């Protein structure tokens, strides 16, 4: 059974903290994505990566960075967390030539106090 695993289901952090959200996939996919999900706004793309050490900005990259040192792992970094970054974060992966065939993780609900 293919899997995208996000390391934490719930996280509570304080304003100004540096936050790491981790995502691991076991499908040998080239593409990996980070979305945030907010009520009434749907899913919005933060960053994506199409190869190790490669990354591109999505639609709402401000306040975030990413790291992809290994093919199976894609990390989202909040350098200095703010309350407006309280959200559900979803990781997804897809094969190289089927970039839109997304497989999602279960999500991390981040609360920034």
């Amino acid at each position, binding site marked *: 059974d293919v899997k995208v695993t996000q390391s934490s289901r719930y996280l509570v952090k304080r304003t100004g903290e540096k936050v790491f959200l981790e995502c691991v996939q076991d499908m040998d996919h080239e593409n990996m994505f980070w979305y945030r999900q907010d009520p009434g*706004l749907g899913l919005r793309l933060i960053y994506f990566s199409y190869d190790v050490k490669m990354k591109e900005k999505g639609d709402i990259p401000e306040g975030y960075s990413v790291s992809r040192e290994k093919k199976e792992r894609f990390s989202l970094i909040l350098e200095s967390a703010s309350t407006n970054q309280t959200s559900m974060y979803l990781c997804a992966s897809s094969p190289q030539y089927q970039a839109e065939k*997304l497989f999602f993780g*279960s999500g991390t609900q981040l609360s920034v106090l």
Partner: protein
Amino acid sequence: ELKVEQNPLFLSMQEGKNYTIYCNYSTTSDRLYWYRQDPGKSLESLFVLLSNGAVKQEGRLMASLDTKARLSTLHITAAVHDLSATYFCAVGRPTNKLIFGTGTLLAVQP
């Protein structure tokens, strides 16, 4: 800029009734995806529509795509409680990164 709108945002319906969720998008695309999300769970792919006039059906759900009208519909026939979930449409962009709609929270009441 591609925008995707879903209507309604929230739908409460009785078991046995029929209803339709609408997904409108603002620029040309011939690739439309429907996903389902159960509370606390991941998004699961329901349908992939890749051409004008495409129609896919599974169980009580049927999805269609009209690329000329930039509209996709998800029709629910004789709803049952198990269909309660949030449904998202997503549209393909030239960059191959999907843009998602706002989601429709469906609650099927006994």
